[in-house]
């Protein structure tokens, strides 16, 4: 039997979820139907089929440290572009373009260092992705990684520990079905056609540090900035490292 304190905690969790996204959150967790596992199997493949989307991403990367992106992603070409706002991490970055093999940054913190060194302004810096070492790059990889060239296998999704139907809900006036894939990934999928509306991922402490929202699907083509505005990070010497540490 659950104690009053436990019921209170569950109620608070439900209220928090409702405030976050929904109008009618009911704790209705159960195993997936074959139709629901097929929705999960299709969703990332569908992202590629749809081409791309405008999106928002909010990531909690540590105590008081957050990264927020708002931009567009081309899932078929694995490219993205976003405005960046951060707190207590990667604070110099204002805007990024990225692909599988390059990250272009517009940095506010670089201009004074360049001026101090008597060098011309650098609108964009290009560097290799560092998906292991930099949390910004992990966030970028997550955005382009929400795509798959092949459908997943619904039978394996069904038997994946943790996979479950969580509830029906409404998000931004879209009727959605909320499904968990494995222990840590939660997909909010449009009830009518299964398109991705929201992706959440959890960490070991289950604090839901990642929330990705599709704002609108569209055929997205991302062209980077003019080549003459791009400087290789190697050409900046220590100035780039200095900017990171300011």
């Amino acid at each position, binding site marked *: 039997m659950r104690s009053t304190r436990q019921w209170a905690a569950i109620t608070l969790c439900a209220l928090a979820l409702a405030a976050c996204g929904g109008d009618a959150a009911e704790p209705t967790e159960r195993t*997936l139907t*074959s139709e629901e596992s097929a929705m999960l199997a299709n969703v990332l493949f569908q992202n590629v089929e749809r081409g791309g989307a405008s999106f928002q991403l909010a990531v909690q990367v540590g105590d008081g440290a957050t990264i927020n992106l708002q931009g567009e992603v081309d899932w078929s070409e694995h490219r993205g572009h976003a405005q960046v706002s951060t707190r207590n991490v990667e604070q110099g970055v204002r805007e990024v373009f990225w692909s599988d093999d390059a990250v272009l940054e517009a940095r506010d913190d670089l201009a004074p260092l360049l001026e101090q060194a008597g060098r011309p302004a650098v609108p964009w810096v290009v560097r290799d992705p560092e998906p292991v070492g930099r949390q910004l790059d992990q966030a970028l990889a997550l955005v382009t990684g929400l795509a798959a060239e092949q459908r997943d*296998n*619904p039978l394996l999704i069904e038997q994946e*520990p943790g996979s479950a139907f969580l509830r029906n809900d409404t998000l931004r006036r879209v009727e959605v079905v909320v499904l968990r894939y494995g222990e840590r990934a939660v997909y909010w999928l449009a009830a009518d056609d299964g398109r991705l509306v929201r992706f959440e991922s959890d960490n070991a402490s289950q604090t839901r540090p990642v929330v990705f929202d599709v704002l609108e699907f569209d055929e997205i083509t991302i062209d980077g900035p003019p080549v003459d505005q791009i400087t290789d990070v190697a050409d900046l010497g220590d100035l780039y490292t200095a900017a990171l540490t300011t």
Partner: protein
Amino acid sequence: MPPDIVKFDAEGEKFLRSGVTSLLRDSAVLRHRCRPIGVALIVAVLAGGLTSCGNDENDQVSVRRVPQQYATIQAAVDEARPGDLVLISPGEYHEAVVVETDGIVLRGTDRNLVVLDGEDRLPNGVAVTADGVAVENLTVRRYQQNGVLFNGSTEADGSRDPDTAYGSGGNTLDGYRVSWVTAHNNGLYGVYAFASRGGLIERVYVSGHPDSGIYVGQCKPCDVVVRDSVAEYNAIGYYGTNASGGVYVIDSVFAHNRLGMTPNSQQAELLAPQVETVIAGNLVVDNAEAATPAIANGFFGGGIAIGGGTANTVLRNRVSGHSSYGIGVVRLGIYTPERNTIEGNVLEDNSLDLLYLPDPSIDHSAANCFAGNTFTTSLPEAIEALLPCPGSRTPVAAVVWGQPPPPAGIDYRDVPAPSARPSMPDAATAPWTSASPIPPAVDLASIRVPER
């Protein structure tokens, strides 16, 4: 005539050929048996007048015709009782057929003209969760998931004890058959048997699948025979993840895939590691085709790969035209191969004919053995001297082997559709029977290396 096709004796009594008679004793779903109605039934059968016959429960076993009696295949299936034949006339059927009744036979009257077409929007062509179902003589194409699926993992009761449960539940599918079926351009597999046992997959043609043409997985024992089939232009021809015990893949052709055949062990499915598959008498050629769909994290240019499998036998196959290797006994993930026998195969025109590549921590043969093969190159060199049969624990130095990244693939929907394939003889009139849970016996001694 395959051994599990029914025959009638002079009195019109239906009987079953050798090896299947025990079904009458063992399987409740296969108890239907025609009454001795004599010459009239024989004449009716010969005249194409398949109608019905009685069973032990005094029910009628019926032929249900689509579209003459039922507008859709699903409507006929829903009305069918165990032992019935759903006989489908030529046409395109845009249905995802679900079969939940034991012992039904679905048969097209013409393999190439009876087409189930998912139009890239429907999930599976034929999805079976019942025992003893057979699918015969039709084409299934353009489904988002699978052409023909047999799935014994249907009870989502949370049970995951690999000693007692198949898949997520305890409901194992027993007995299935796929014959004279063409499956092409489906989004996962052509013919997919998952958590199922007691199968016969024969005379199928599968192409254009971004995972594999034929897949048998997560079963122990599987007791399945795959024979006289062709898999071309798939990411993988035959894929047997955690498919263990009584698995025979014989007398078939695996050509122009990215990887021909791979019994293998993976953590992604239950019942690992994989053990005891026999691959014999197959023609495994030119599985280095770039114009194929690429499986994620895929492999390219291999004939037969024992990926972390145990106690498999690769016997008298012809393996040629591979850019990575002909036959590899290799590690896969956390699994390293043990006690596999590679014997009597003919290898030619491969960049490397034979490869043994265990986990780097393994400095011995792990009872894997190579003998009597016709080959030119191997790694380690002189592989038959280093790892002789019968296998034992002999020291083997680590080898270095790598392959270039696989070439980009093409969309599975863009793989050209196959040409017409041979149809089942007299499909409209031939007798039918439910699928046996006991596959036909395999006489390995009679299997020879196929000609090119």
